[in-house]
């Protein structure tokens, strides 16, 4: 009798907890105060476990970096000597191109892109599960970070800030199934939308079936999504599938390896997304 009543009590408790947490999820989707309040309590309760973890893993990370850097420096020295020789020639050519670029930009009447205002952040932890791919960075609301800011790393775009706490922010990676960014093939300027596929390679969708895309093409951000400034690397085309309907299915190898991201830049102003000012109508005589 006691066992039956205990089982009933547990089933009742399960029902209550399930209902409460479903309400919590619904509230968090709507951005409700109740979810934020519960999250704040949970955050405060977990501090005693997280503070020592950060200290210990910070020390571990320093030790790992020290040994890695010593080894890497020797190899790097040899590489750099060769690189300096090569870059001297490249620099001359780039100067020419920069002058030409300035002339052409003026000619077209385009706005000069300002370097986006940004702050550096270190990755505290990451979750690279199949359905949710997110990193935690050590900059938060107190540093001026807000939701929907773009996050980039050396090499290309990483993801987008989805929620911000006082001292840290959660960043949804581009490989997350719920991520999306507007991309363009650097060579042919064919546009499309880059979507994540969890642990699988990213996909570029809505590319017209007659667009010129070949394996190896580099895809960069187009700036049309209002989050990422144009020009950040997204990936390289690895597979160009058969057209389905009016569009092609394209698979991408990401430019930035999610597993290797340690430091990122959070772009505080997406200045590269400014559109051209509408042309002044010509005065009629």
């Amino acid at each position, binding site marked *: 009798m006691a066992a039956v009543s205990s089982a009933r009590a547990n089933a009742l408790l399960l029902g209550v907890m399930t209902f409460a947490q479903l309400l919590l*999820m619904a509230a968090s989707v709507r951005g409700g105060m109740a979810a934020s309040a519960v999250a704040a309590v949970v955050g405060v309760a977990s501090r005693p476990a997280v503070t020592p973890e950060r200290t210990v893993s910070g020390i571990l990370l320093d030790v790992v970096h020290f040994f890695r850097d010593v080894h890497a420096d020797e190899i790097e020295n040899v590489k750099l000597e060769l690189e300096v020789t090569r870059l001297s020639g490249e620099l001359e050519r780039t100067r020419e191109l920069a002058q030409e670029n300035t002339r052409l930009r003026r000619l077209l009447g385009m706005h000069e892109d300002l370097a986006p205002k940004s702050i550096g952040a270190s990755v505290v932890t990451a*979750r690279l599960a199949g359905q949710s791919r997110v990193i935690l960075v050590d900059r938060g609301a107190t540093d001026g970070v807000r939701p929907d800011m773009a996050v980039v790393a050396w090499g290309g775009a990483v993801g987008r800030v989805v929620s911000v706490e006082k001292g840290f922010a959660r960043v949804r990676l581009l490989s997350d199934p719920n991520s999306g960014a507007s991309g363009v093939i650097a060579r042919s300027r064919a546009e499309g939308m880059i979507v994540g596929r969890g642990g699988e390679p990213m996909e570029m969708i809505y590319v017209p079936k007659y667009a010129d895309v070949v394996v190896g093409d580099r895809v960069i951000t187009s700036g049309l999504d209002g989050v990422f400034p144009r020009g950040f690397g997204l990936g390289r085309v690895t597979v160009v599938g058969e057209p389905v309907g009016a569009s092609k299915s394209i698979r991408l190898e990401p430019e930035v390896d*999610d597993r290797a991201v340690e430091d990122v830049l959070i772009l505080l102003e997406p200045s590269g997304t400014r559109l051209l000012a509408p042309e002044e109508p010509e005065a009629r005589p």
Partner: protein
Amino acid sequence: MIVLWAVLGIGLSLAFELVLGRFAPGATRYVALMTLPLVAYALRTSQRSSMVVGCASGLLEDYWIEPRLFGLNGLVKTILGWAMGGIGARFDLNNFWGRFASGASVHLVDEGLQTALRRLFGEIVAPVGVASLGIRAVAGGLLTAAVLAIVSKFGTSRRATRQKNRKA
């Protein structure tokens, strides 16, 4: 005392989960360390305590790692705690194969329930690969069996020391 051990277990799991995410983020696809306290309590104590431990560890995981749906992991782990606690009360699973099977099934059901709930709340879900599920089940099972073996060994040695002290 049971509450203290639960708090310690959940705290340690959270700390190790965050460390794993920092040093080997690729491994977080296959192992979920926050399920360990849940399985430990389901196999060793009551159904109710495993539900509560599952709920607490899930909510902590949500706060730190879940980008949108706060409460998702809490709900999934509450259900898992209830199911595993029920099974643990009926069968003796506190041996290597029992722990392995419990860990493997918890890792698999955790992934399945999360996918279903994400879809229910309008998120896009990625196709789940059979190979990655297989690796997840084996890795989760082995990890659970290993950690619970260490925990029970520690528990046995503590009990023995306490008895020796009492005799002395």
